Structures are given as structure tokens and as C-alpha cells.
């Protein structure tokens, strides 16, 4: 801090204010008298339940698919690794709506893969599975990115030592590599859960919106804006609290 010029505090303070002010403004708009009633309405509860359910499933899917991906990206020096990394990170910079359209052309009824699933009697569009697919699509890069970074920082010294002592690759992975990056894995999982929880664009484009099946909390908030702005604000506030809790959790893990 000593090495920083003092004037930097002003723009830094403005930056912090810029982020905090809208959140404070929203909290000020919450009708606390009806807060409980607004939150416990059937549609709100059902959206909250669905959101938690799908986001947890998506976070689990991110771990299953993202950990192997991060390992390959961090440890492989094969040609094409760079391209693979760029491809995997695309959902991070893509507008979610575009992701939703892409998912539709892949898994929709007329889609590349969906066409064949439809023949088998499997329909993904308009189902909770579609919500999980949309969330996993946008959340996966968060886990891959934070885990790959940690794997690179950890290096391969311990892995080489374990291998030289006769450990098989699978044993090195489970007993050396993964324990080393466990904090990053946890924070990556929490971040991907949070991203899944906030998913809106890809879900509304690809999965549709039906209470209890595909209408997650962000979709419910957007819909409530039409008819009941107070309920929308109350639900937004809940989502904000969850976001703050998630950041505290992920950040603490990272520092540790």
C-alpha cells in the first residue's frame, strides 16, 4: 500500500461505489413488510427450488467434465491444446443468448443431435435437462479456468517424485495432483455453481419457461417484473445474498 500513490484511492473508491451503489439502491427498494409473503409464494418457492436443484446438478456436471479437461489443458503439450483451450473458454465470452441458440441447434428437436434423440423418444427441449445443459454450458469455463491455473502454479515436481517412487498415473492423480489443487477445485466449483444459478439467456432461449420445470429464479424475476415488481425486487435481493455468500466462500478458499 505504501508504494501506491495516494491519488489512486479516488478512482478506486469510485470503482467500488459504482458496483455497490446499485446493490444498495435495490436493497432500499425492498418492501420489508411483505418480504416474507413475496418470497414464500408458490411460484417463488418453486423457482428457488428448481434453481438450487439445477445449479447443484450443473456444478456436479462441471466437476465431472471440467476436471479432466483442466488436467489435459494444464499437462498436455500436444499440438492443438491451445485451440482446445480457446474453444472451451468460448462460452465465457459468448452472450448467453447465443449459447442458447447454439444449444437449440444441437439438442433441439430439429437439432444435430436432438433429431436422433427425438427418434428414440427422448426430448430435451422444454425439460429440466435442458436447463442443466444450458447452465453447464455457461458455467464450465469457470471451473476449467480456475483449476487449470492452479495446476500450472502447482507444477509437476510432486507428481514426478511420486511417479519415480513407483506410483501409477491414476494413483498420482488421486493422491498427489488432486489434493494439491483441492482449494482451487472447491472455489472453481462454487464459482460454476454461482454462474449456473444466475443463468438466464441460454435458459430462456433453449429451455423455455414453465413453473416447476424450467422457470428458474432469474426467469421468475424477469417474469414477475411484468406483473409484480415488488416480488421481483424481493427475489432479486435473495439472489444477491446468495451471490455474496458464494463470493465469500470462494474467496476464502482461494486465500487459504
Amino acid at each position, binding site marked *: 500500500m505504501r508504494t501506491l500513490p495516494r491519488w489512486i484511492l479516488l478512482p478506486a473508491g469510485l470503482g467500488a461505489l459504482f458496483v455497490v451503489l446499485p446493490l444498495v439502491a435495490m436493497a432500499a427498494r425492498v418492501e420489508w413488510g411483505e418480504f416474507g409473503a413475496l418470497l414464500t409464494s408458490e411460484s417463488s418457492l418453486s423457482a428457488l427450488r428448481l434453481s438450487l436443484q439445477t445449479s447443484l446438478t450443473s456444478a456436479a456436471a462441471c466437476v465431472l467434465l471440467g476436471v479432466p479437461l483442466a488436467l489435459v489443458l494444464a499437462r498436455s503439450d500436444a499440438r492443438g491444446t491451445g485451440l482446445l483451450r480457446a474453444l472451451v473458454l468460448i462460452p465465457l465470452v459468448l452472450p448467453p443468448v447465443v449459447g442458447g441458440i447454439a444449444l437449440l441447434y444441437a439438442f433441439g*428437436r*430439429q437439432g444435430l443431435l436432438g433429431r436422433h434423440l427425438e427418434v428414440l423418444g427422448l426430448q430435451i*427441449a422444454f425439460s429440466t435437462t435442458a436447463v442443466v445443459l444450458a447452465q453447464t454450458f455457461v458455467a464450465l469455463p469457470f471451473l476449467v479456468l480456475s483449476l487449470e491455473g492452479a495446476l500450472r502454479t502447482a507444477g509437476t515436481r510432486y507428481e514426478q517424485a511420486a511417479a519415480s517412487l513407483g506410483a501409477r498415473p491414476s494413483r498420482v492423480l488421486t493422491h498427489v495432483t488432486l489434493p494439491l489443487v483441492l482449494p482451487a477445485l472447491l472455489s472453481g466449483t462454487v464459482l460454476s455453481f454461482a454462474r449456473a444459478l444466475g443463468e438466464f439467456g441460454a435458459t430462456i432461449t433453449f429451455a*423455455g*419457461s414453465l413453473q416447476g420445470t424450467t422457470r428458474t429464479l432469474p426467469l421468475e424475476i424477469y*417474469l414477475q*417484473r*411484468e406483473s*409484480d*415488481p415488488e416480488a421481483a425486487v424481493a427475489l432479486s435481493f435473495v439472489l444477491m445474498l446468495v451471490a455474496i455468500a458464494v463470493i465469500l466462500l470462494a474467496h476464502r478458499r482461494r486465500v487459504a
Partner: protein
Amino acid sequence: MRRLSRVTAAAAAGAMLLAGCGGGTEDPADDPVTLQVFAAASLQEPFEELGEQFEAEHEDVTVEFSFAGSSTLVEQILQGAPADVFASADTKNMDKLTEAGLEAADPVDFTTNTLMIAVPAGNPAGVTDLASLTGALNLVVCAPEVPCGAATATVEEAAGLEFAPVSEEQSVTDVLNKVTSGEADAGLVYVTDVAKAGDEVEGIEFPEAQEAVNTYPITTVDDSAEPELGQEFVDLVTAEQGQETLAGYGFGGA
């Protein structure tokens, strides 16, 4: 690196100089006037056409449109968005404006729209009327919270049916997209949406649609910078010329 930054700086300075010159050559006397029209998303095509006519009839006037859901637009106006004219897709959202006392004149009903069944080209699920929508097919409708969904609920009740949609969308455009992409076998949209979608969808009329006729009101907004121009635009929409344009896109008479 140093050389590069010097070149960039020179280029930036040059660009600024050019921009400055460009601004100077314009005559400051005839200030262009911009008319801000906030209109329901379904009005986009006819209003853009009317906007061009309006611009042709008024020199130095630019009509700028903001097309979105009526509830979004009225919320923006209530929060201080600079609208001169507001055209709503239903009376409910116009009422929000008048309740806040933000209308500059009494709203006038200028057109109507009714529901229609939209099916993908070829009608894969063989939909014939409202009753056939209760069968085993992917039906997509608007959520009851939005105007097209309220209209859907009305015709549903009038026909004594109970739909089991696979999705209740946020807007009529979302419903139409699900039909054009073939994800849905049928959707309830407005007559004007079917007209807009062209060959990709087929429209099926049904008698119960008359139970839920959607009326579109228009008005000028209070505190407008261009109240006279705004009123002239409203007059254009309500006059024969405007009505013909609207009818061309499938809208009904007020």
C-alpha cells in the same frame, strides 16, 4: 514500442482534428429535431414505415423508435425516460401511465389485434382448431403475466378448455421463435405475428379469438420536448394513412 505509441498518438490526434472539422461545417441554424416514440414491439414494422413517412413530411425531424414490451416501456417512462409518444399493446399498461398522470392528452385507441394459432410450416402435429391443442403436442403460449398470456387465458376459458403448455414464454416473439424453429408444434400468437413470420409458419383462425380482442392505445407523453410534433405523429397513426399501414400488417380497426 515507443515508435508505435507515437504513431498511435498522431493517428488519434488526426482523427480528432477531422472530427472537429466535420462538426464545424454543419450549419447550426437548422437544428435537427428528434421525436422519441416508445411503441409496443408488435408495432415495429408498421410504425417504422409510418416513421419514414413522417420524416418525409417533416424536414429536419428524425423519428427514433424504442420497441419493447409495453410494460417495460411504461416502466422506463415512469423512471424518466425521454418519450414523446407512447403506444401500448394493451390498455392495462396505458393505465399505468395515466395513473401516474404522465399523459399529455387522453389516450386514443388506434388499432386491435387478436390471437391466432401458429404452427410450423406443414403443420406436423395436424392442428385444426383450439380443441386440438389439448392433445399430445408441444404447445407454447405466453405466460399469464404478460398481455398475450392474459388473452390466451381468456380464450381458453371461453372455449372451456385447459391447455398443458410445455412452456409459458415471456413474450409473443419468444412463442413465435419456438414455433418457427420447430421446437413447438403449436403456439398462440397474434394475427400480426403470423403475417410477419411469412412462409415459416401457418396461421389457424379460431372463433374464440373474438373473446380477447387486444386494444392498442396511443398518447403523447407529459413533459415532452416536442408536444406538437408528438401530437402530429399520433394524428398520423389514427388517420386513414396510418390505419391503412396498420391493416397491411394484419392489424384490425380500432
